């Protein structure tokens, strides 16, 4: 039997909406694919772009970033600030040739347990089709004599 | 002939951890490898690079005396990446050690002399190695005087040993804390180290002075010793410039034509007077 590739996905989620939403997915007994490792942070505003770089360099094939919908931030405006940062970050990453298709941004509220499951499934299927992020892994190993 | 990898550390097991002062710990380290333990030897004044695997290496003196076999000790304050990681270690954990490196205190040449130790704060550890070395060879020397100061009573390191030295009648220990650093039950002196030394007025005759402390303490103590009549050749100190290799190669500790890691860390004041003040 040929081994199918299973992507490793790191999800950075905010404590107040998406983490609670993902919790609801579980308590609602909605099943979704097990490829995602969830890291909880206080707010999307805290998700520094360096965390994403670290996730890729430690072997993630894809990344999910998710937090409260606009206007719903527990800290009023953390997600608005985050949104600006991601708008610039994506442009820069694209210019540097980083595969932004592997980075998914979304708003998942504490009530959207089903959306979380749907999001993870969709991202997992997409990354499974894309295959491992070989370029990045090769880069991580390069340049040491 | 193939060369050895000079950057490979010994593996050491932490045998004992002593909390000395806020954020200051002493590790007792034993060699994991028995043959290394047998062949290892050092002299007082030498130092090593201690590694916390995962974070890197940091330079401290060997704070124990070479007369105490089977282990080495180091005392460090938690200030950065490596010392922070070391501080998280527990008894039984493995750390790395490279050394011994550097020159030594020439205690054999001091036979028959009086010794005056002057230390401030976290700078007692390098002198502690010499002190125990000399106390274990007590009949080599005449009077032994130790002046030790810290900012506060809590910041004094080796509190148990200070007590031991205080109780010995062959050691004259003078402890002092900076004004405001005393506790209600403090029986030692209150005041900065330089004036305490000045008041104590140790005789320079046939005496070797060993000074180690923060730069400001050294800077203010040296004139006091000069006034008391100590010659630059009779005053010793130990430097600790930033180092990465300890082997005279990485270039960080370069001060004038010397490498602190090779030509130091022990210098006489006379030698320092001929070096640029880049330490």
């Amino acid at each position, binding site marked *: 039997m040929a081994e199918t590739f299973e992507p490793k996905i790191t999800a950075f989620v905010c404590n107040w909406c998406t983490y609670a939403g993902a919790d609801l997915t579980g308590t609602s007994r909605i099943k979704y694919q097990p490829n995602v490792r969830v890291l909880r942070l206080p707010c999307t505003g805290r998700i520094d772009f360096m965390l994403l770089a670290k996730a890729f360099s430690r072997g993630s094939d894809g990344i999910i970033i998710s937090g409260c919908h606009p206007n719903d931030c527990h800290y009023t405006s953390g997600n608005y600030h985050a949104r600006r940062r991601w708008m610039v970050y994506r442009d820069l990453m694209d210019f540097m040739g980083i595969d932004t298709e592997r980075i998914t941004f979304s708003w998942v509220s504490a009530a959207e347990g089903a959306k979380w499951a749907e999001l993870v499934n969709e991202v997992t299927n997409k990354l499974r089709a894309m295959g491992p992020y070989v370029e990045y892994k090769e880069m991580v190993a390069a340049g040491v004599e | 002939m193939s060369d050895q990898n000079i950057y490979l550390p010994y593996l050491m097991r932490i045998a004992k951890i002593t909390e000395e002062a806020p954020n200051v710990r002493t590790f007792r380290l034993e060699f994991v490898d028995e043959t290394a333990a047998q062949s290892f030897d050092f002299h007082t004044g030498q130092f090593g690079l201690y590694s916390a695997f995962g974070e890197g290496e940091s330079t401290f003196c060997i704070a124990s005396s070479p007369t105490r076999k089977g282990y080495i000790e180091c005392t460090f304050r938690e200030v950065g990446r490596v010392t922070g990681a070391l501080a998280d270690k527990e008894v039984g954990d493995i750390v790395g050690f490279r050394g011994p490196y550097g020159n030594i205190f020439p205690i054999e040449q001091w036979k028959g002399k009086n010794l005056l130790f002057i230390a401030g704060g976290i700078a007692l550890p390098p002198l502690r190695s010499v002190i125990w070395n000399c106390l274990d060879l007590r009949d080599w020397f005449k009077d032994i005087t130790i002046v030790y100061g810290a900012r506060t009573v809590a910041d004094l390191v080796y509190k148990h040993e200070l007590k031991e030295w205080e109780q010995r009648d062959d050691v004259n220990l003078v402890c002092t804390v900076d004004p405001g650093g005393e506790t209600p039950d403090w029986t030692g002196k209150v005041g900065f180290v330089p004036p305490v030394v000045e008041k104590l007025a140790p005789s320079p005759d046939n005496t070797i002075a060993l000074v180690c402390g923060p730069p400001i303490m050294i800077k203010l103590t040296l004139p006091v010793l000069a006034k008391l009549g100590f010659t630059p050749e009779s005053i010793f100190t130990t430097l600790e410039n930033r180092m990465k290799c300890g082997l005279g190669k990485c*270039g960080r500790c370069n001060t004038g034509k010397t490498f602190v890691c090779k030509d130091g860390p022990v210098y006489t004041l006379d030698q320092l007077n001929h070096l640029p003040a880049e330490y």
Partner: protein
Amino acid sequence: MAETYHLPQASLDPLFSVILASGRRILAPTDRDGRSELNPVTSPAQVAKDYVQTALSAKGTVFPKVEKLLSYATEPGKVELTDPVPNALPTVLFGIRPCEAAGFQALDAVFNWDYRDKFFNARLEQLAVIGVSCTRKDDACFCTSVGGGPGAVKGSDILLTPMEGGYLAEVLTEKGQALVALAPDLFNPGNGVDKAKLVVDVPAAFDQPALTAKLPALFDAGLWADQALRCVGCGACAFVCPTCVCFDIQEEADPRAGRRLRIWDSCGYHMFTLHASGHNPRDTQGQRWRQRVYHKFSYYPERYGMLGCVGCGKCTRACPVDMNLREHLVEASQAQVKP
């Protein structure tokens, strides 16, 4: 041991072929997008035609910018160390300039005084240098002021000096002889040419022994801080320098495994000497610039009996603010020592 031959231009192609066939790689200056840099080549046609110097020095062949010193695996209560074998490829460096070739001896002095550095030695052992004398120079060059010259042989195993129809080839070491032995027929008997007439003239800019003698007295002179005012404190000069050897050791690890890497470092950085206490022995850029000059021109001679500078001028060319080493040394040479 020098033996002199004539190497016809047409012999270069077969010489490259036999060197490659012997399992050695050839690194030579290439000209890509107007940048002169060392790259692996397979034929003389790929070698840059018209260069004074490459931007980076060849020191990376023996002292790479990132090099593994050790690795380890950890689990609770246990550490397993691995001593890496340096990946030292048999290499011929073709076409570097005599100044740069001389630089290897300055590196050797540091890496092998007292403790011997196995990583450096393994790489140096595998390296043979075919230098090419200079027929061009620029404003940054000052090899003749520091004991070298456009046709100096020190550090090369074979030195080629361009001449009519090919090269004057001086075979200087056993490594050089081993290369000749790969294809002795390519080398014709020498014909007594005057090398001095073939190379460019680089007049001496200052009296180095006099400068070295004077530096201790100039230590507290204001000129170092004045010169360094425009220095931005980057490490470009040190990193392109063929003799700058200062390094850092960095650790990279995850919870289960890690490695220690040796990387280039520079005395020009503020962090280079910064103590954990916050005290910095060389706190200003002037002090750090002075350290760079003194290390090369005062401490090196005292310690190793040689200069830590070969006069290649790479630092000057690399400097974003034109800190011209030669000019600054001339200024120091002319400075009055205060009694």
